[in-house]
C-alpha cells in the first residue's frame, strides 16, 4: 500500500447520501486526478459526523478540518486551495478560527463538539465502515480477543454488571443483569439478538451506528454470545435502512473471512454465527416479544411477560435482546474496564447517550454526551438553539412513549431516572425541539395518530383506546372539545396505561398526559377560548381583514379559491366569511398592505 499524505473522508451516512455525497466522492477523485495529487491524497467514505442538518460533511486529515454543506462546485476550491496549497477554505469550515492570530481551532473545541464525548459513536466518521482493517487498526476485535483468551463467561458478565450499563433502547434495564439471567439458564441452545428496529419518529442513532461502525455491534454480539453461552445471533433490522443493511452484510462477510465469526474463534473453541433478519418497519416489533415472534416468522405481536426472553425467548430458548447503542458500548467496556465506564456519566446512569437532535433546532444531527449533561447544554450549546430567533417552547424526548419538557426543566441532568421523574423518558434518544410555532395539542395528536397506525391490535385497550383518544384529541383541535372531553381523555389515558398488554400501549398515553400536565393552558385555549395559540390547528384559525386599514383593492378576493371574501373594489372594505373560509392563507400572502391578520 502506498503512503498518502492526506485523506479526504466523505460522510456516506443516510443524511449526507441524500445530500448527494456519492457524487462528491466522484468529483473529488476527478479533481484530485486533474491536479496530479492522486498519489498523495486518498478519498474515503465514512460514517456520520453528527452534523446531519448541515450535510454533506467532509473531514480532511491530518489537519482534522471539517467542511460542512459541501456542494459539487466547492470541490474544486477545496482541492486547489486546501489539498494543493494547504490553505483551508474558511467559508465552508466548521472549525472556528481565532480572529486575531488566524489560527484554526481544533475541531474538538468547536461548540458543537466540545461538550460531546463519543463512546458509542467512537469510530463513526473516523473509519471506513466497509473496511474491517480500519476497525482493527483502532483496536477493533481486541475486546473479543481479550474476552475469549483471558476471561470466563462469568467474568464478562461481571464486568458488564459492574459497569452499570443500562439498556439504551428506552427502558434502561441493567444489561449485565439481563446477561446474568441468560447465563444462569441451563442448556446449550441460546440466542443473542440485536434490536435494530428503531422506530421512534425522528430517531436515527442506531442507524448511524450501524452505518458508521457496524463491526462494533458484531464484535459485541460475539462477546455477548460467549458470555451467556449462545452460538447464534440475529440482527433484527428494518428493511427501511438499506445502507445500514448493506454495510452490515459487508461487515459480516468480512468478519467471517477473517474467522472472527464462525467456528473456533481465536482458537478458543468458541463458535458463533450471525444472521440478519429484515423487519417490515412495524413500530411494535421494537417490543422484544413481538420482535421474537417476527424472527420466528409469525405476525409481530407481543405476548405477555413473564416468561421473559432471558428464560424463554426465540424458539422457546433463553435469549438476550440488546439495543444497537447498548452493544456499541460493550467492546469499549471490556477493553477499558468497567471502572473507566463508570467514570463517565452519573451514578445511576453511567456512560454516554446518543441523541438524534431534530425539529426546530439549528444544528440538526447526532450528538453523544455524557449522562448528566443538562438538556440546556445539549439544546443551546451543541444544538445552538431554535433557528430564526423563535422562542423555545418544549423538547420532546422518548418519542411516542415519552413526553415533553418545558423551559423550566431544561436544567435537569440527563439520566434514565431523572427524565422519568419529570413524566418523560429517555427512550431510544430522539430529541425533538419545539418552538412557539408548535401547538402542543397538535403534537399530542400527531403521536397518537402514529400509535393508532402502529398498534398491533392484539389487546383492546391499545387497539380501541388509542383510537378513541385520537378522536378526542381531534375534537379538541377542531374546537369541538369541552371540559368533559379533557376529563374523558385523561381517564382513558390512565386506563390504557394500566391495562395495555405491552410497552407500546402502556406508554402510548404518555405524550398526551405530559402535554396536559405541562401545557394545560394550551388545551384550555382550544377548549374554552376556541383558539389555537400557536396558529396550527386550522379549524380554530380565523383570518380577518382590518376594515379601517383595507385599501379596497380586491387582490385578496381575487386569490380566494372559495370566494369567501366580499367587498367592492374602491368602495367597500373587504370582509372574510368565516364559514366559507378554508384557512389556506392565500389572501394573507396576496395582501400588499399586510392588513389581513391570522388569529
Amino acid at each position: 500500500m502506498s503512503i498518502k499524505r492526506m485523506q479526504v473522508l466523505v460522510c456516506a451516512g443516510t443524511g449526507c447520501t441524500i445530500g448527494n455525497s456519492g457524487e462528491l466522492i466522484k468529483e473529488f477523485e476527478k479533481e484530485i486526478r486533474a491536479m496530479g495529487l492522486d498519489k498523495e491524497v486518498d478519498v474515503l467514505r465514512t460514517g456520520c459526523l453528527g452534523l446531519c442538518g448541515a450535510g454533506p460533511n467532509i473531514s480532511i486529515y491530518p489537519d482534522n478540518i471539517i467542511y460542512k454543506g459541501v456542494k459539487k462546485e466547492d470541490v474544486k476550491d477545496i482541492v486547489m486551495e486546501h489539498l494543493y496549497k494547504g490553505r483551508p477554505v474558511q467559508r465552508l469550515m466548521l472549525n472556528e478560527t481565532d480572529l486575531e492570530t488566524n489560527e484554526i481551532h481544533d475541531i474538538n473545541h468547536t461548540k458543537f463538539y466540545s461538550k460531546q464525548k463519543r463512546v458509542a459513536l467512537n469510530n463513526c466518521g473516523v473509519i471506513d465502515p466497509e473496511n474491517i482493517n480500519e476497525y482493527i487498526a483502532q483496536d477493533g476485535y481486541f475486546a473479543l480477543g481479550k474476552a475469549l483468551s483471558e476471561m470466563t463467561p462469568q467474568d464478562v458478565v461481571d464486568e458488564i454488571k459492574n459497569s452499570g450499563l443500562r439498556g439504551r433502547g428506552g427502558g434502561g434495564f441493567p444489561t449485565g443483569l439481563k446477561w446474568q439471567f441468560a447465563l444462569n439458564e441451563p442448556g446449550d441452545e441460546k440466542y443473542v439478538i440485536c434490536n435494530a428496529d428503531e422506530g421512534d419518529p425522528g430517531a436515527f442513532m442506531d442507524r448511524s451506528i450501524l452505518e458508521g461502525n457496524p463491526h462494533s455491534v458484531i464484535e459485541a454480539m460475539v462477546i455477548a454470545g460467549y458470555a451467556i453461552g449462545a452460538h447464534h445471533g440475529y440482527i433484527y433490522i428494518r428493511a427501511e435502512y438499506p445502507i445500514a443493511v448493506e454495510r452490515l452484510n459487508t461487515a459480516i462477510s468480512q468478519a467471517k473471512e477473517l474467522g472472527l465469526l464462525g467456528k473456533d474463534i481465536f482458537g478458543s473453541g468458541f463458535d458463533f454465527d450471525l444472521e440478519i433478519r429484515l423487519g417490515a418497519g412495524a413500530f411494535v416489533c421494537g417490543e422484544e416479544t413481538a420482535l421474537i415472534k417476527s424472527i420466528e416468522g409469525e405476525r409481530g405481536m407481543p405476548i405477555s411477560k413473564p416468561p421473559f426472553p432471558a428464560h424463554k425467548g426465540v424458539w422457546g430458548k433463553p435469549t438476550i435482546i440488546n439495543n444497537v447503542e447498548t452493544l456499541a458500548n460493550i467492546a469499549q467496556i471490556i477493553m477499558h474496564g468497567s471502572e473507566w465506564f463508570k467514570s463517565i456519566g452519573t451514578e445511576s446512569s453511567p456512560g454516554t447517550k446518543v441523541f438524534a437532535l431534530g425539529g426546530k433546532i439549528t444544528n440538526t444531527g447526532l450528538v453523544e454526551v455524557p449522562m448528566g449533561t443538562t438538556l440546556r447544554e445539549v439544546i443551546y450549546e451543541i444544538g445552538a438553539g431554535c433557528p430564526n430567533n423563535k422562542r423555545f417552547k418544549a423538547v420532546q424526548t422518548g418519542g411516542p412513549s415519552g413526553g415533553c419538557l418545558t423551559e423550566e426543566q431544561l436544567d435537569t441532568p440527563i439520566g434514565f431516572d431523572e427524565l422519568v421523574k419529570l413524566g418523560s423518558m429517555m427512550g431510544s434518544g430522539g430529541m425533538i425541539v419545539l418552538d412557539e410555532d408548535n401547538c402542543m395539542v397538535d403534537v399530542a395528536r400527531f403521536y397518537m395518530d402514529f400509535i393508532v397506525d402502529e398498534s398491533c391490535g392484539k389487546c383492546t385497550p391499545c387497539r380501541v383506546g388509542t383510537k378513541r383518544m385520537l378522536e378526542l384529541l381531534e375534537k379538541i383541535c377542531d374546537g369541538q372539545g369541552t371540559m368533559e372531553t379533557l376529563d374523558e381523555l385523561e381517564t382513558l389515558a390512565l386506563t390504557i396505561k394500566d391495562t395495555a398488554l405491552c410497552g407500546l400501549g402502556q406508554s402510548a398515553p404518555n405524550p398526551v398526559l405530559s402535554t396536559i400536565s405541562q401545557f394545560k393552558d394550551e388545551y384550555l385555549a382550544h377548549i374554552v377560548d376556541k383558539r389555537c395559540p400557536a396558529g396550527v390547528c386550522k379549524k380554530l384559525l380565523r383570518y380577518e381583514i382590518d376594515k379601517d386599514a383595507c385599501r379596497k383593492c380586491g387582490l385578496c378576493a381575487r386569490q380566494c379559491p372559495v370566494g369567501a371574501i366580499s367587498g367592492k373594489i374602491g368602495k367597500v372594505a373587504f370582509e372574510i366569511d368565516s364559514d366559507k373560509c378554508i384557512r389556506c392563507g392565500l389572501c394573507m400572502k396576496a395582501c400588499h398592505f399586510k392588513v389581513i391578520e391570522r388569529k
Partner: protein
Amino acid sequence: MKSLEDLKKIRDQAKTQMSMRGNGETDYRVVIGMATCGIAAGARPVLNTIVEEVAKAGLSVTVMQTGCIGMCTLEPIVEVFDKNNNKTTYVLIDSKKAKEIVLRHLIHGEIIEDFTVGQYKK
C-alpha cells in the same frame, strides 16, 4: 485467523493508514509551506519525502501543509513543532535535507542548527 497474534499483525499493518486520523496527540507536528512560493521553490517533493520517511520509520508525527509563511525567498520552509509547541524553522530545504530532518530531528530529537532560519546569512 487463529490467534490474537494474527489480529495484532493486521492491526499493525492497518495502522499506517489510520495514523493520520488520530486525535492529534503526536510527538511532533511538521508543517510545510505550500503556497505558490513554496510550490515553486520545490516544496512538493520535500513534503512527499517527509511523509514517506515518517511512514517508513513508523513515527508519531503529523505532517501538514500550510499557506505562505511570509519569507518567500527562503522557501521551501519546514516548521517542526514539538509537544510543547516549541517551533523550529528550517529554511531552504530540499529532499536530501528533508531526510536528514526526519532522521536527526524527528527520530533523535536533535535540532539541526545549520538548517535553521537563525543560521541563514545572505
